[in-house]
């Protein structure tokens, strides 16, 4: 367990990511300390997903650097990171349990009990035999979260985990995540439903046009920013 002292577990220095001629990240610099829950907010196209993918080692940054848990190479610490994306990252043809059992093996987790545990934790039933392709959108989303939680990561990168989940269950998921945070995990949640995280988040990070423009605890301030900009989408 990491103590709750502000040791930066993630340091990002002037990160730039270009897709051809378009820059999705335009110089992101920040430090994030351990054991906190960060909500990353921002308009569509602000670069939130790109930032998360870069941290997860799925994009090569065009320039700039970052270190996670003191390491510059993602591969060295990948066992301690959980990542959840827009797409489910699950095999449509297998049931939820089969999926988790497979992904568990990639992390050296062989116990089905652990898989069943995370499935219960996100509010699904591990005995559902239906393949994931036949799940409803929200169920798929939860199963995807379960996959990210599976290896009990120190750092969780979640891309819009609540977007198709019903309000009641989203609240439960927030409680679950807050509990995980309390046990020392650093959590990044990209979301458009900031209100859900109002009590739980330790900091709100507002991104705009590829930059972090504001970090605050006061959601109200961000709303003003949000209103004042965000016209046509780039």
């Amino acid at each position, binding site marked *: 367990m990491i103590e709750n002292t502000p040791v930066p577990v993630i340091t990002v220095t002037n990160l730039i990511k270009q897709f051809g001629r378009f820059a999705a990240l335009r110089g992101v610099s920040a430090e994030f300390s351990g054991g906190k829950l960060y909500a990353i907010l921002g308009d569509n196209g602000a670069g939130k997903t790109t930032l998360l993918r870069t941290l997860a080692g*799925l994009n090569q940054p065009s320039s700039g650097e970052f270190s996670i848990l003191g390491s510059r190479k993602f*591969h060295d610490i990948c066992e301690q990171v959980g990542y959840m994306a827009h797409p489910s990252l699950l*095999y449509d043809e297998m049931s939820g349990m089969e999926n988790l059992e*497979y992904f568990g093996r*990639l992390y*050296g987790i*062989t116990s089905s009990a652990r898989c069943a545990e995370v499935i219960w934790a996100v509010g699904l039933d591990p005995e559902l035999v239906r393949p994931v392709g036949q799940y409803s959108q929200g169920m798929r989303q939860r199963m995807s979260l379960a996959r990210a939680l599976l290896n009990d990561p120190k750092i969780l990168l979640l891309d819009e985990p609540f977007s198709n989940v019903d309000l009641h269950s989203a609240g439960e998921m927030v409680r679950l995540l807050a509990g995980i945070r309390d046990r020392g995990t650093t959590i990044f949640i990209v979301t458009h439903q900031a209100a859900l995280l109002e009590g739980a988040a330790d900091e709100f990070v507002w991104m705009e046009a590829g930059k972090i423009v504001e970090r605050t605890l006061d959601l109200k301030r961000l709303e003003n920013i949000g209103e004042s900009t965000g016209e046509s989408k780039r």
Partner: protein
Amino acid sequence: MSAPSGITRVTLLKDLRLEWRSKDAVNSMLFFSLLVVVVFSFSFDPSAEESRQIAGGLIWVAFLFAAVVALNQTWAREIRNQVLDAYRVSPAPANSLFTAKVVGNFIFVSVLEALMTPLFVVFYRLRSLGPVWQLALVAALGTWALVVNGTFFAAMSLRTRSREIMLPLLLFPISIPALLAMVQATTAILNGEGARFWMALLASYDLVFTTVCLLLFETVLNAE
């Protein structure tokens, strides 16, 4: 983290199970090769002697094209919901994935060959003058060559536009020596001649390309 070989095993088992449930790849391969056999038997009614001359080429062309159809689908499942990303963020080594895919494809194509060969034998009234075990060995070596390269290039063509057409464009030129060796070895054995040289060539081709593909696969997988 479990041993790489353990991960290869689970990945392979998962693929085999999924394939067994849907049977997509095997079906389309089988279908295609059947068409080839029938087209040939319509167009040419060979006597035993002549057919032995062309049978090597015939069989291998059928297998090659069937393999391309199968290889094109190798990564389809991994791409669908970007599952490949889940693999990439996990500590599992890239080569385990590659090995599992290669072995999986090898099994598919071998099954296909095992099913097709009797048809060829019947249609062309083939009778090998050389030892049959040598034929099996050539088939195994040749299939491995096709499958290693094919899996590698299929992964490569994932990263390109217009995947399906890209695979044969990349695979065929580099496989030509292997293909030639397979055809020549098969023909030689069917005619009761020695095929030592060709088998050695195939074996070393397999060795070199397997090694290099293993060395390069991680790079290709992690190219964004």
